[in-house]
């Protein structure tokens, strides 16, 4: 909600966050064009969870759909934040990488195919730590290969947010779309509190957390391209517009010097607050 008004339009909107992951993916496609690949009945599930006493899910929490967006070929990969916090394991990571690589091959063969990532993920799934880390490396390299041809669009809509290695994957995508409810960061608040103490970062302070990681802050800092309402229609339109906009002249992750200068200007001997990091937005980037 870029302007929080509980108007009739807002209350009557179709929430994107409240859709399940499969519905979210489907809502981005032209009606009737979406078809799921490697779905739950294919039973490509994690072989590692059951042996650790964790119930697996038939799609490993990763949904891959193919179809058209505004009549352009596209693949949407959605993570299900309700299953293992959307964590990346061997199988879900391989599904994402394979989807990106197939899209890349289509582009190489002269058939433009864009990719949209719906990221509701805490990063690497701890039960599959090393395989998950390897998966993140593959995902990043596949995004970088694909973004030469078509935009790779990351959408971070829900409060699960996008953390850990997957925040790096979002960082190398062509465009990032967030809602104010979304969160984006490398180390999550619980991890920082655990490592550095509650004086450093209070993970139970929701207003502090959203003022650091939240969509509004990330947009103001210039780390996000579009701040959208939690509205399925608005998010679908935003994705369509970004597909049409094409590959950016320079990707955010190629702008090393401006971001390095932002970090260099911060003084780590003092406690930072949301206002200080918000002032990044007024610095030259």
């Amino acid at each position, binding site marked *: 909600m870029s302007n929080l008004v509980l108007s009739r339009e807002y209350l009557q909107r179709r929430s994107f966050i409240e859709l*399940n992951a499969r519905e979210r993916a489907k809502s981005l496609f032209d009606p009737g064009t979406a078809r799921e690949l490697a779905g739950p*009945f294919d039973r490509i599930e994690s072989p590692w969870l059951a042996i650790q006493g*964790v*119930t697996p*899910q*038939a799609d490993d929490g990763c949904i891959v759909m193919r179809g058209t967006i505004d009549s352009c070929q596209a693949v949407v990969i959605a993570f299900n934040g309700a*299953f293992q916090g959307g964590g990346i394991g061997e199988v879900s990571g391989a599904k994402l990488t394979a989807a990106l690589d197939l899209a890349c091959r289509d582009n190489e063969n002269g058939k433009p195919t864009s990719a949209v990532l719906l990221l509701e993920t805490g990063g690497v799934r701890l039960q599959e730590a090393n395989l998950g880390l390897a998966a993140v490396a593959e995902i990043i390299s596949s995004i970088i290969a694909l973004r030469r041809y078509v935009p790779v669009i990351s959408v971070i809509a829900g409060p699960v947010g996008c953390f850990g290695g997957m925040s790096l994957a979002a960082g190398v995508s062509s465009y990032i779309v967030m809602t104010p409810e979304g969160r984006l960061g490398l180390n999550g608040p619980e991890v920082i509190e655990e490592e550095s103490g509650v004086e450093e970062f209070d993970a139970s302070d929701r207003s502090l957390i959203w003022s650091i990681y939240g969509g509004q802050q990330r947009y103001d800092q210039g780390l996000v391209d579009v701040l959208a309402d939690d509205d399925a229609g608005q998010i679908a339109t935003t994705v369509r517009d970004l597909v049409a906009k094409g590959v950016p002249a320079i990707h955010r992750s190629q702008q090393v010097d401006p971001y390095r200068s932002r970090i260099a200007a911060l003084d780590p001997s003092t406690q930072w607050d949301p206002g200080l990091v918000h002032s990044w937005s007024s610095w030259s980037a």
Partner: protein
Amino acid sequence: MEQFEFNYPAKRKITKRAHVGVVGSGDLEVLLEPIDSTAASVRIRTSVDGFKNTWKTVLDRFFSQYDAAVHIEINDAGATPGAVSLRLQQAVEASEA
């Protein structure tokens, strides 16, 4: 994690499969698909041990009113019996829609 299987008699055939739910805390995933058989089979994997009798009671009740030849797989993350019954009904609705 525990795994068990149950079988029930079946009288009629259905044509459509259905997938509902998510393996999230307090929830479960149901995969329901038609099979060519005179019996229905259910395979359950649950993260909460020690409730086999409760599962049997919930499924006995469900199959007292449902007679299609199906194979059902349930992946459970600690759903209550009420939530299990609702998800089963939702799967049936989706398969008959």
